């Protein structure tokens, strides 16, 4: 694992309000868990940056180390690690996610 991957990941997370590390893309997710989280973000109508970790094995392993979290997807909001599919789904269902995402909802 090179430091450059860690600093690459760090700068993406610091440079964007909402970042989703996922398998595939929002248009073509490659895993049901990634699909679910990207669909939830779409439902909240917030712009976000998605990183397809399948494109680069170094990023795929690097994000697990960066977050100390063994699975994908992983959601960051304002540099804070929110969680994976379980946590995002739960927060979506109980309304907490709406509060977290509210500042980033696209102006109508």
């Amino acid at each position, binding site marked *: 694992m090179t430091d450059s991957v860690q600093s690459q990941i760090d700068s993406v997370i610091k440079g964007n309000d909402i970042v989703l590390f996922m398998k595939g893309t929002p248009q073509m997710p490659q*895993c049901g*868990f990634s699909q679910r989280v990207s669909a939830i973000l779409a439902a909240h109508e917030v712009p976000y940056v998605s990183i397809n970790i*399948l494109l680069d094995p170094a990023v795929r392993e690097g994000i697990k180390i960066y977050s*100390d*979290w063994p*699975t994908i997807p992983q959601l960051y909001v304002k540099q804070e*690690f929110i*969680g994976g*599919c*379980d946590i995002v789904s739960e927060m979506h269902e109980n309304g907490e996610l709406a509060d977290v995402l509210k500042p980033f909802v696209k102006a109508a």
Partner: protein
Amino acid sequence: MNPADIIRQVLQETFKPTHLDMIDESYKHAGHAGARDGGGHFIVSITAEAFTGLSRVQKHRLVNEATRHLFGEVIHALSIQAKGPNE
């Protein structure tokens, strides 16, 4: 021992849970792109004192930490519902 029993044993020994349920959903995902690296898909529901008062991310981290050595070969995806006895 099958994979679900391996995970169950690890969680049992680590957390001495008052409630522990494991569901093996691997059959639902066999063959999809993300599952090619081996391990299965499991859902764990666990209640133990260790989770009391922790945030969701902290709870998941505890379970992830306990099962870290199983990721890859045994576990591909682990869906976690963890709580303290009074939550």
